[in-house]
Structure formats: structure tokens, C-alpha cells
């Protein structure tokens, strides 16, 4: 198999762009998420996760045909199918049409409910037709009559006719929504009614046996607040055999009201909530990657099927040595050469231990000779010290290495599972980019040896994906430009902190906000928007019971940016940022604000900036562009 073929198979497998996925790959590559059994329970539930966490794929797996195919692949059959799901997506471009036009809100409520009824019933007719083929029977006319009369239509005797009629009703509704002031009237079905009738009919007719119907609603965040209230009412009133499964982005479930304004949709009475980030991402992501590696192997590509073999890792000492520990170590030994005894005792130590003396000297300002003596006399103390500060010292090692392609490695299974912070799309994108880099670096790859992704290729991929996400931010969010400026500034502050250990705790990469109340509110609103768009991560410091307590939340840049800013991906220590200084980043003098955030600490010169940050040097130097 040629290089190009290898790239092409691997990139199809790891590319998330599902348009390029042959549809048969869905069942071949689908991995059950750890929370699937919770999702399959009868009660309504909300599946909450950021973009790319796999909500749609999970909901899709509940669809009647996907479930059936999964059962078949396990040697089971239709008789083993316990539920029948249909899926509707709340397309933003369509749901946004149900507002304005001089029509009052109450009327839009009814029109939107009618639209939702049509969408779900269209899918239910597809399900009904599928059940007809499975059971070899046709749904009786009187049952179909019960459904069609809910839509005010008659003369429908088969499910195919009903499907066509529903299509016509959607077209009529489209004409109405495009010109809502026209004198022509349309018949509106009553909220919930046809959906409930349809599920009851399928049950009573014996078509569905005692199976439950899951109405899966994806992209709930796209709904306007009043539309969420309409569908909340459906969910509130859901009874067997009908249940609802909702996919929603974090912070996208904005309105818990129902049409009866007093009656809120509440946990645990009305629904369960599954927060994807809390549901064993690493186990799931690893299974996804290994299944795809297995698939690649079956297609004749020489790859390991274990993720930890595919993503080559570096030990601490290997990494330190690659980053120039030897150079520093030589310098240390030279400086100590005057003390023969000390020199003799150190010379047998490894470079990855000796360089640490220099790091500690920079951190504390102590004399090198004193530190060396202390080490010799207190080996265990220094072992602990290296354990606590060793990782942080790797960032310091990269300082001043002008022109080096890599100043800190991001590689290995553990790092690749951590950087996406629960986002399966990011995880796949990292691997996809790493494969591409590897095949660029390893031009002579001949398929004879197993393809492992080198630490260099992984690191370049981490940087690339971070850069891509940063560029994308600008377009994603309503305040994308401000978020990008904030990310760039905070990233730069932590970049500088990582390189300047003097009088600092190691691995500071999260922050709380403090200062002027009004400014705190402003920056908090921006950070919350940033969390929704995966610019930041947040850890509530206390349980969020009121807005006041939320102010103590601890924020950090999303881990996907770690490689771009060359900072630690591990959640360790936090600092405090003044909200006014953070807001300053959005003004015309970001460099001043960055300097204030660093509390006067030194910044590396423009020529010392890593290539990816140098692109933003005009922003960092102060003119704001």
C-alpha cells in the first residue's frame, strides 16, 4: 500500500468530517458511549455536552434502524429490540422563522407546535413503514385515520399516503410562515396530540409490541426560548410508550418553563440529565481510536492496534534530554568544576537530573554550589522536588532555544486523551493531524514497520489543532473577536509564567477573577460564552447555588490550546486576575494589559516568541491588531 493510500485510509477513518464517511462506517465504527445504558432508560433525558462531544452520534444510535443494525451485528434480531427511536434536528435556519412578522407570540407558540408535530410524525411514518416491512403487515386504515384526523386531513388510508400528506402540510406551513399576514388560514394541530396519538396507534395496533418510542430531539440550543417552553411541555407530559431524548449544548438549555408558565421542567421529577464530560470520556475515546486502528489494520495498513503503541510517548528524562538538558547539565558541571569532590559526585548523575539544579537556582536565586551540596546531602528531598517541579522545569528548558522547532513535547496516549477535555471531535482531529504530520516527516515510510506517531508529529499536531481552534473562535461565538483576544492574552500570560519560575508556583494555568464588580460581571459573561464555545474550561469552585457564588469559578484556557501556547495541560495551580486588566485586553493596548496581568514580570522578546505566537506579535506588542 502506498503512502498516499495509507494517508487516505487513515484520514477517512480519523477525519470527523462525516460527509466523507461511507454510511456503512457508522455501524462499523460506532462505539457505545459509557452512558448509553442511562440514555436508553425509559424516562426522558437531556444529553448535555459541548460541540463535538458526540451527542448527535449517540442520539442517532437510538434511531430504530441504527439500533436494529447494532443488534444484528451482535447476532440478535428485531425481537430483541426494546425501543424504537426517531430523530429530529432543530435546524436553526428553520426554527428562527417562527417569530416576528407582526404575529403575536401566542400564535407562534401554536404554529411552532404544529411544525414540531409535523416533523416528528413524518419520522414516525418512516418508522411505521419500516415496521410494516418487519412485521409483513400494513397498518389498518382506522388507525391511520386517528392520526390524520389530528392534522385535520381525511381520505388517507396508508402510511405512504400519510407521509405524502404530511409533506404537503409542511409545504403549506412554509407558505404561511413566509407570509404570516396573508388572509389564508391553515389548520394547526394541537400541541403534543398527533405525536401521542401516533405512538399509541403503533402500540395498540401491535406493530411495536411493548416497545418504547424515543423521540430524540437534537440541537435543542437552537430553539428560541419560547420554543423550548413548547417542547418542555411535551417532555413534561410524556408518558409511556413515548419518551423524549434531548441533545443540547452546554448552557443551551436556557428556559425550563413550560407553556403553563408556573410549571417548570425539573430534575429529577421530569427528566434525567447526562453530562457527557462526566461520563468516562477517556475510556470511550480510547475505544473509538482503537476500533479505528483495528479497522485500518484490517484494510491492510501496518499500524498498532493499541493506542499507547500508536502514539509514541516520551519519558521525563527522554523529553528533558530532547529539550536540551545536556547543554544545561554541561554548563552546571563546568560551573562546579572548581569543587572537585562535588564535581566527582555529580558527574555520574544523568543530564535530566543535573539540569534541574540550574532551574532551581533560577527559581530561588541561591548559589549553585550550595544547591548541589544540598542535593548530595539530601537526595530524597531533591527527588521529591523534581517530582513536584520536574514537569514545570521542562517549559523552562525551552526558554532561549531560538529557532527550535519544538520547545515542549505534547505526546502519548495520556496527553492526547486529556487535551480534548471530553471532546471526541477534538480527539479525532488531533490524531488526524498527527497522522498527517507523521507521514510528512516520515517520508520514507514503507509499510514494513508498524506506523507509530512520533512525539514530534504529535506535538506539531497539537499546535496545529490549537491554532485552528483559535482561528475558528472568531467566527463561532457572538463575541468571537473579543474571545480570541482574551485567549491570546491569557495564553501569553501563562506562556511567560511557565518560562519564568522565579518566585512562582509551578504550572500555574488557571485563574479566578477579582476586582471591580461591574468589570467582573462583564468579563464573567464573556468567559461563560467562551466556555460554551470551548475557548475556556470552568471548574465551579463551589456548587452554583447563586450568581454570587459563581463568581468564584476557576477558569482556564481550554486544554486544546496548551500546545499552541506551550503551557501545561495539567490542571494544577491558579492565580488571580483583575477583571479590569482582563478587559484591558479588549482595548487598543493589549500589551499594557498583559503586562499588568503579569504584575510587571518580564516578557520574552519578539524574536524569542515561538513561531505560532510570533504571528500575533503586533497584537502582543501593543497596537492591538
Amino acid at each position, binding site marked *: 500500500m502506498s503512502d498516499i493510500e495509507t494517508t487516505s485510509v487513515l484520514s477517512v477513518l480519523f477525519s470527523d468530517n462525516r460527509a466523507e464517511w461511507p454510511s456503512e462506517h457508522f455501524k462499523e465504527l460506532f462505539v457505545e458511549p459509557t452512558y448509553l445504558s442511562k440514555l436508553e432508560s425509559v424516562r426522558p433525558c437531556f444529553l448535555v455536552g459541548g460541540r463535538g462531544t458526540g451527542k448527535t452520534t449517540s442520539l442517532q444510535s437510538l434511531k430504530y434502524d441504527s439500533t436494529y443494525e447494532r443488534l444484528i451485528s451482535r447476532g440478535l434480531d428485531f425481537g430483541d429490540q426494546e425501543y424504537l427511536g426517531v430523530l429530529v434536528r432543530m435546524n436553526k435556519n428553520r426554527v428562527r422563522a417562527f417569530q416576528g412578522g407582526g404575529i403575536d407570540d401566542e400564535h407562534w407558540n401554536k404554529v411552532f407546535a404544529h411544525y414540531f408535530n409535523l416533523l416528528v410524525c413524518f419520522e414516525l411514518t418512516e418508522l411505521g413503514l419500516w415496521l410494516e416491512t418487519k412485521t409483513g403487515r400494513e397498518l389498518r386504515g382506522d388507525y391511520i385515520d386517528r392520526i390524520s384526523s389530528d392534522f385535520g386531513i381525511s381520505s388517507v388510508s396508508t402510511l405512504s399516503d400519510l407521509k405524502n400528506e404530511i409533506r404537503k402540510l409542511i*409545504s403549506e406551513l412554509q407558505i404561511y410562515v*413566509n*407570509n404570516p399576514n396573508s388572509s389564508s388560514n391553515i389548520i394547526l394541530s394541537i400541541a403534543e396530540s398527533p405525536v401521542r396519538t401516533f405512538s399509541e396507534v403503533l402500540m395498540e395496533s401491535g406493530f411495536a409490541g411493548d416497545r418504547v418510542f424515543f423521540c430524540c430531539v437534537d440541537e435543542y440550543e437552537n430553539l428560541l426560548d419560547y420554543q423550548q417552553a413548547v417542547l418542555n411541555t411535551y417532555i413534561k407530559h410524556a408518558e409511556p410508550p413515548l419518551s423524549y431524548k434531548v441533545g443540547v449544548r452546554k448552557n443551551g438549555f436556557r428556559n425550563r418553563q413550560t407553556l403553563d408558565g408556573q410549571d417548570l421542567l425539573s430534575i429529577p421529577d421530569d427528566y434525567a440529565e447526562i453530562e457527557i464530560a462526566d461520563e468516562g470520556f477517556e475510556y470511550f475515546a480510547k475505544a473509538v481510536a482503537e476500533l479505528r486502528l483495528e479497522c485500518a489494520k484490517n484494510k491492510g495498513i501496518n499500524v498498532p492496534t493499541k493506542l499507547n503503541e500508536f502514539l509514541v510517548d516520551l519519558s521525563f528524562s527522554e523529553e528533558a534530554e530532547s529539550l536540551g538538558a545536556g547543554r544545561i547539565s554541561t554548563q552546571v558541571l563546568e560551573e562546579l568544576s572548581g569543587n572537585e569532590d562535588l564535581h566527582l559526585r555529580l558527574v555520574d548523575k544523568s543530564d535530566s537530573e543535573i539540569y534541574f539544579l540550574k532551574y532551581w537556582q533560577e527559581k530561588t536565586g541561591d548559589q549553585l554550589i550550595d544547591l548541589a551540596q544540598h542535593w548530595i546531602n539530601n537526595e530524597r528531598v531533591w527527588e521529591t522536588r523534581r517530582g513536584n517541579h520536574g514537569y514545570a522545569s521542562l517549559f523552562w528548558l525551552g526558554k532561549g532555544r531560538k529557532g527550535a522547532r519544538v520547545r515542549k513535547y505534547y505526546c502519548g496516549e495520556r496527553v492526547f486523551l486529556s487535551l480534548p477535555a471530553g471532546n471526541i471531535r477534538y480527539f479525532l482531529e488531533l490524531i488526524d493531524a498527527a497522522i498527517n504530520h507523521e507521514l510528512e516527516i516520515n517520508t520514507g515510510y514503507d509499510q514494513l514497520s508498524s506506523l507509530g506517531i512520533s512525539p514530534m508529529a504529535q506535538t506539531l499536531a497539537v499546535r496545529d489543532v490549537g491554532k485552528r481552534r483559535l482561528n475558528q473562535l472568531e467566527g463561532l461565538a457572538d463575541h468571537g473577536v473579543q474571545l480570541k483576544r482574551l485567549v491570546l492574552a491569557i495564553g501569553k500570560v501563562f506562556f511567560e509564567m511557565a518560562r519564568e519560575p522565579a518566585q512562582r508556583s509551578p504550572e500555574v494555568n488557571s485563574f479566578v477573577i477579582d476586582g471591580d464588580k461591574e468589570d467582573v460581571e462583564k468579563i464573567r459573561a464573556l468567559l461563560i460564552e467562551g466556555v460554551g464555545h470551548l475557548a475556556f474550561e470552568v471548574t465551579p469552585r463551589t456548587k452554583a447555588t447563586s450568581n454570587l457564588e459563581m463568581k468564584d469559578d476557576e477558569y482556564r484556557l481550554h486544554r486544546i490550546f496548551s500546545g499552541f501556547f506551550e503551557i501545561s495541560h495539567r490542571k494544577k495551580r491558579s492565580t488571580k486576575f483583575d477583571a479590569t486588566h482582563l478587559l484591558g485586553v479588549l482595548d487598543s493596548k493589549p500589551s499594557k494589559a498583559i503586562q499588568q496581568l503579569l504584575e510587571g514580570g518580564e516578557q520574552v522578546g519578539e524574536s524569542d516568541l515561538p513561531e505560532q505566537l510570533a504571528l500575533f506579535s503586533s497584537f502582543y506588542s501593543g497596537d492591538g491588531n
Partner: protein
Amino acid sequence: MAESSNFPDPFDHTVRFESIGLEDILENETIIVADGSTEDRGQLPLWASLRASASDQLISLVPDINAETVIVNAKNTIHLRDEEQLDHITNKEKLLIDISGLPHSVWAPLLKSAQKQNIPTRVLYAEPESYKPHPSPASATLFDLSLDFLGMAPLPGFVQLSGPPDEDKCIFVAMLGFEGNRPERLVLQIDPVPKVIPIVGVPGFQLEYPAFTVACNRVLLDDYRAHKELRYARASCPFDAYLQLKKIHRDYPNHYMYIAPVGTKPHSLGAILYSLNNPNNTEILFDHPIRKAGRTKGLGVIHIYDLGKSPYV
């Protein structure tokens, strides 16, 4: 033109001017223009003189910020989804719509109304001389054109509820402009992700603009592996854009086409015309930018397109 019997030949149906005068307006032609545009090209000197001398020949529109209504001749407010009210405006012997200073949410429904009534329509578009640079750090967006976006919502009168019959058979045609994040923001709303086919304005309004456009959209082109699908249509020609869309549809038969008219206005015009002629398998995706005051400077070439007879067959 061999493409179709009544499709306007761009060469016969486009005229270009450095400046226009009364002699360029047709007899009994009603002109629809933006009132209070903050751009030089949105307020042609001829409109000011016509407003003073022949105000009944000129319909001035002031759109509201929410893309919902428009104030007509500083008197009546009409809803842009009210076909009857729109028909009342466009039901004239001949129409000339100056789209330079009007947002898509205004000119597109007016055009739909005029086409529906078979009103002979010409569309005027004035290029700017230059655009304002952008403040975002190393932005994908070279120029500072928009203050904010209302977000994705259908253009008035262009709601498409049916959607694609097969979600796996969709394409997303992005008419690229200088705001590289706009098509990306729109395509991100579609699931499953469709194939992305970009159209770049070549030749551009200015020699360097096509290169700027590709640079501004590099993230989209990379992320969606769309380089190999790049198509070209003259930046100032709606007919060329229309034909390119037709060609794309021919290359992807039975595909549902999402079109993001976020490039040049003439391309957007081509997209709207295409969508009006192919209502069942196209859907316009738009993000309703709130334009920055003074986003452009000066006045460049003025184009007038004679749309001919629709529907194009």
C-alpha cells in the same frame, strides 16, 4: 446563451458606469434605494437630485436593525414578510433596485416580489473604492466590515421548512468574501456536515481581491478540504454566479444545496435568483450582519444588471 433559452447573456444584460445620470434611467422606471446609508456608494448623487426633483420616481427605504421591517419614504413601516405590502411597492411598470446600501433582508424579498409579478427589473450595484482594515489579531477577516451579527435566520420570504429529503445528500455552497469566518459559522450549523464548495470572485473588483478572499477563508478551505472544489465566478457578475451554481448542481445531481451568500453582493444576487428559480432544492443560509458605519470608502464602478424574464428556463 446556450445554457438556456431566456437566461440573460451577461454581456448584453450588464452595463457599467463611472457615474450615472438621468439618461441612464429608463422611462417610467421606479427606483428603489436605501435612505441614510453610511457608505459613499450607498448614496449616489443622482438619487439626491431625483429626491429633490422627481420624488415619486424614487422609493427610499430605511431598514430596521432586526431585519423585520422597513420604513418606506419616511412614512409607512411595512413587514418584509408581508407579500401584499411588498407587492404594493414593486408593482410598477419597471423597477431599478439599488442594492448597494440595502441589506439582503430588504432587497431579496423585494426582488422575489418583483419576479413573482413579472415586473421588468434592473438591479444596480456600486462597488466601493476600498474597505476598512480589521482590528482582530491576525484575523481571518482582513477588513472590518461588520459590527455584529443577528445570527443565522432565513431571509424574509425565503423560509424553507421542508429541508433536504436525504441529509447525506447535501452540499454547502459558500460564496466567499473577506469575512472568512462567516461561511464557517454557517456551515457549523448544519449536521451532518455537508460537502463544502466555495465560489471565489474571479476576476475580483480589484486585482488583489481574489488572493485576499482565499487568504481570509483559508481556515474554511483547510478544515473542509475544500481547495479542490474551488469554483470561480466574476465578482461583479450575478449571472456568472448563477451559472456557476447551476453547474455545481449539475455536478451534484439530486443534492440539496445550501447557499451562503456572504461574498460579493452581485454573487448574492445570483444566489437569490438561483434560489427563486430552484425553490425545492436550495436553501439560503444567512447570518444578517450589522454593518459598520464607514465600512467602505469611495465609489468604484457602478453596474446595472437587467434581470430579463424569469423564471429562467
